């Protein structure tokens, strides 16, 4: 069972019901559950969307798109059925926050889905969980069944004349399906190949109907925004970045865990105070701030870095999915870069050539390089390959593979050079990387 952690700096909004047995519907109700949905039912769609806009809640999947704005893009007059699709395909390396949400507060996901449905006029919501999360799917399925039994879901939600149905869905192992259009393809029973945009899902989405797709954390946050009020929620975070975020701090820290901290919280403090500093009294070498696809940051770059979408963007990286991966000074960056690119090579769907070929060549080059058979030209070649993938693919997976690679080569060039001329890896503990 995943351990829950705590730190005094945490502001527990999304995690406020964690560890309190809220997966049981009666307990969820005792803790104030489903009040937000009832309020939204009374207030109507325009009010909900205005609240979401005012809350400055931005998409927690990685792109940070404003949630209220996304909902407002769904055309009101459209003959096709509308859908809400919750993305619980959590697969970005370094990210395990949705895992805890499904485990500890499944009804928050259901309630958030209902509210999104009320806002856009959808009658059906789908909650898609990655295939590996079977035990969490079972928890979600039980929660959905309980909500139906209480009359919260179905033809007449809370006794009103409004219908809302929720269907849970399992994936079967594919990182790419976390991309919104690939997710819709998967839900339609196909290979998870991204769609060409436009049209965007808000206009033509699932089964051809207007669709809102939100990350599971975003959706689980929605009832809290309604409950505490948009202004109070927005005030918790930093400028244009409302509220809190579930930061998954992993790697070489003393106290890894998922911590809920206000947007804009200082990254250095997050590592040294919240997560207890670097394991074994070692030194920080680098930190990946938002899941494996975000460019690495050096210790000097995190001194005054507030963790919100805008500040991390300015620092040349991305806030991404909230997966903070901390790397100590005994780690080989070439090995780390190779493990990162091996993942993207494995997960590339193969549709766009720059991604399919690029990730493959990068993996080959880095494998050879790390084994001590690299030549000086390889370093520039790795950079050149990555640069040529950027912005040339239909979905962000190509960029997700290229961006971290560029970061490693540019910021740790010396370490790459130290691997040259048949020299063994300069780190005593050589990591033998198996080929997946």
């Amino acid at each position, binding site marked *: 069972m*995943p*351990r829950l952690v705590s730190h005094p700096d945490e502001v527990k909004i999304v995690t406020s019901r964690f560890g309190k047995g809220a997966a049981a519907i009666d307990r969820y109700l005792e803790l104030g559950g489903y009040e937000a949905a009832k309020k939204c039912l009374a207030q109507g769609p325009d009010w909900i969307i205005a609240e979401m806009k005012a809350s400055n809640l931005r998409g927690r999947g990685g792109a940070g798109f404003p949630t209220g704005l996304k909902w407002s893009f769904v055309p009101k007059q459209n003959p096709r*059925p509308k859908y809400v699709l919750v993305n619980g395909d*959590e*697969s*970005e*390396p*370094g*990210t*395990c926050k949705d*895992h805890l949400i499904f485990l500890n507060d499944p009804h928050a996901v259901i309630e958030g889905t209902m509210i999104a449905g009320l806002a856009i006029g959808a009658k059906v919501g789908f909650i898609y969980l*990655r*295939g*590996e*999360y*079977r*035990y969490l799917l079972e928890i979600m399925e039980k929660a959905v069944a309980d909500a139906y039994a209480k009359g919260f879901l179905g033809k007449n939600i809370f006794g009103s004349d409004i219908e809302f149905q929720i*269907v849970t*869905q*399992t*994936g*079967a*192992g*594919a*990182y790419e399906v976390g991309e919104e259009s690939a997710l819709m393809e*998967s*839900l*339609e*029973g*196909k*290979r*998870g190949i991204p769609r060409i945009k436009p049209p965007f899902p808000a206009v033509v989405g699932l*089964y051809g109907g207007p669709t809102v797709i939100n990350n599971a954390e975003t959706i689980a946050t929605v009832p809290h925004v309604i409950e505490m009020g948009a202004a109070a929620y927005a005030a918790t975070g930093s400028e244009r970045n409302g509220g809190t975020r579930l930061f*998954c*701090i*992993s*790697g*070489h820290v003393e106290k*890894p*865990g*998922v911590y809920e901290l206000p947007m804009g919280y200082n990254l250095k403090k997050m590592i040294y105070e919240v997560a207890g500093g670097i394991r074994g009294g070692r030194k920080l070498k680098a930190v*990946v701030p938002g899941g*494996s696809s975000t460019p690495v940051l050096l210790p000097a770059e995190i001194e005054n870095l507030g963790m919100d979408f805008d500040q991390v963007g300015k620092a040349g990286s991305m806030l991404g999915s909230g*997966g903070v*991966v*901390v*790397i*100590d000074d005994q780690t080989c960056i070439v090995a*780390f870069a190779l*493990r*990162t690119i091996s*993942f993207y090579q*494995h*997960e590339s*769907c193969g549709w766009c050539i720059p991604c399919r070929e690029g990730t493959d060549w990068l993996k080959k080059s880095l494998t050879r390089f790390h084994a001590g058979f690299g030549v000086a030209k390889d370093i520039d070649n790795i950079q050149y390959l990555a640069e040529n993938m950027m912005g040339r693919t239909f979905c962000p997976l190509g960029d997700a593979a290229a961006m971290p690679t560029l970061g490693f080569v540019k910021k740790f060039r010396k370490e790459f050079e130290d691997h040259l001329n048949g020299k063994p890896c300069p780190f005593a503990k050589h*990591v*033998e*990387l*198996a080929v*997946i």
Partner: protein
Amino acid sequence: MSPEKASPETMSLFSPKLAARFDALVQKYPLKRSALIPMLLYAQDEIGYLSEAVIAEVAQRIGISELEVRDVASYYSMLRFKPAGKYNVQVCTNISCMLRGGYEVYERFQEELGIGHKGVTADGIFSLEEVECIGACCWGPAIQVNYEFHDELSPGHVPGILAGYRGKAGVLSDGSSSMGWKARTEGTDPHA
């Protein structure tokens, strides 16, 4: 497929419970085909892998060709066309787990089981896989055995984990497996 193993009314390969689950599943979506991926995974949980017969029956139930089923199934890394062990050990070696010793854990499993990536032990009890991130990054190194997570591991935990599943395999050798695998493949049961 031996006739006595199929449910008599439908000649289905699946247990009556699973067949009923499929019947309910296809009703849930605007398009029947949306049931395809869950159906394949649930079928695999019961039968052990996507055999020719499983693919044929799923294709027939959804109303698409076997080729289309294969096309989709080959995309998803959890779906397999060959039997795995009764307990499929999946070791995450992605970055967060790697930094905390995921490879050392994986190596220990290789040594203890005497098999490598996608290998199956001779007794059919275990198979081993090196897998991508399983969403347990803050509790790494982490593994999954079938769908069960084991967190915060070190190589020293490996023999105990394997002994636990070996014990379970003994208890459930009558085929009354509660999760995952069940020996009902069509004459190709590797554990018979």
